């Protein structure tokens, strides 16, 4: 059943994937990617036994992946590992990871990114006890170094450092400066949403040309060859993301929708095949 299982984390959150694979006592590796980030989670006979992502390993990796709002997963059966970095039952791991995700969201409300610069406050109202681990980051507060810089200097996990700064801010010792304004040039990885042009005013511009129903048939059929039964769901997600409906979908946005669906296909060869087929179709329909 799980042979070649792939999909989108937006559709299949990590806890669902782990519950499914562990309940069917699968053995193998789940490869998870979100842009430049990658994590591998190994399962064996109904349990998660090892997780790794960059320099991180063990249960924290599960929590990290659960913060990814998008990305893809791919399960490769029968990939063994001799490493064991996760020893607790899956339910406990997921429960703690969910709590960690909640905590991270709370901290991210205050510290939006590693570019934030922590600064010592001028005065404090009450006596404060500082933990040794917190002191190690406090020593870098010179009003210039960002949290990312401190992480680099300490060679420690960025999230641990961020959490320590958050603790210091709740103690009233540290405040944060907003990062510099974003540069004019947008360098974010493009998404269909970001690249969607602004909707024209109702009274201005030429009338909107709607795509034919055949477009969605072709799109779904080609996507299904790479994405399987999730294809229609992913197409609908793309339509939602572009703030439209199948019935009123503008022809000028067709390529953006194709690009969105292509972005969900992790395998290079399958993605290229899909892109070629759809670009050819779009050209012929133009």
């Amino acid at each position, binding site marked *: 059943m799980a042979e070649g299982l792939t999909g989108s984390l937006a559709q299949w959150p990590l806890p669902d994937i782990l519950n499914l694979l562990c309940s069917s006592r699968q053995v193998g590796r789940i490869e998870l990617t979100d842009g430049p980030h990658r994590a591998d989670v190994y399962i064996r006979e109904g349990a998660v036994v090892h997780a790794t992502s960059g320099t991180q390993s063990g249960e924290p990796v599960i929590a990290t992946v659960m913060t990814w709002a998008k990305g893809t997963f791919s399960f490769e059966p029968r990939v063994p590992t001799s490493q064991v970095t996760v020893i607790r039952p899956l339910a406990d791991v997921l429960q703690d990871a969910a709590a960690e995700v909640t905590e991270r969201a709370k901290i991210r409300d205050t510290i939006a990114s590693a570019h934030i610069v922590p600064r010592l406050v001028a005065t404090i109202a009450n006596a404060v006890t500082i933990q040794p681990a917190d002191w190690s980051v406090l020593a870098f507060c010179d009003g210039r170094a960002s949290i990312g810089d401190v992480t680099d200097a300490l060679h420690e996990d960025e999230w641990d450092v961020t959490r320590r700064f958050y603790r210091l801010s709740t103690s009233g010792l540290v405040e944060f400066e907003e990062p510099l304004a974003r540069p004019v040039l947008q360098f974010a990885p493009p998404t269909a949403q970001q690249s969607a042009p602004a909707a024209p005013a109702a009274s201005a511009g030429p009338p909107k040309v709607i795509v034919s129903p055949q477009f969605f048939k072709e799109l779904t059929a080609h996507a299904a060859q790479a994405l399987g039964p999730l294809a229609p769901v992913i197409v609908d997600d793309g339509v939602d993301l572009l703030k439209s409906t199948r019935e009123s979908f503008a022809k000028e946005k067709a390529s953006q929708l194709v*690009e969105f669906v*292509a972005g969900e296909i992790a395998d290079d060869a399958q993605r*290229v095949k899909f892109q070629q087929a759809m670009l050819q179709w779009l050209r012929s329909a133009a």
Partner: protein
Amino acid sequence: MERDLQQICALENVGGAFVCDNAGELVVSSSPPVLATIAMGEMSRAAAQTLAAMDRSRKPVDRGEFTYDTWRLFVRDLGPAMILVVCHPNVDMATLRMTVDMTIVRWRKDNNIQKRLSKRANLARKDLLTEAHMDDVAWHSYQLLGA
């Protein structure tokens, strides 16, 4: 590579495309060249610095889109080199991105192209982030970013 660049240039509102290494040396250009060789080199060096700076500031990207008043530049990282596409602001960026994506996947599998590009890997991109490789404004801005 030349034929692939011509295919990219066949897209509506695309003016030209070229590949330069990290040092700004031209590897290949669509024909006729969209710009003077020296201009292509300058643009690619600036683009390589930008990619390196993004990487250094912990926001690595493998592509960039620069929008100006009358034209647009699309840059895609190839590792030791970059592909740059000069286009009109009205270009269909999604189609362009996908077309370049397909081209790059094909290039990655082509040993001859990989050899051609790897010969150029004599300058690491991060080495561009030095005072010697930047003008005063760029260097000052880079330092302000805390890099």
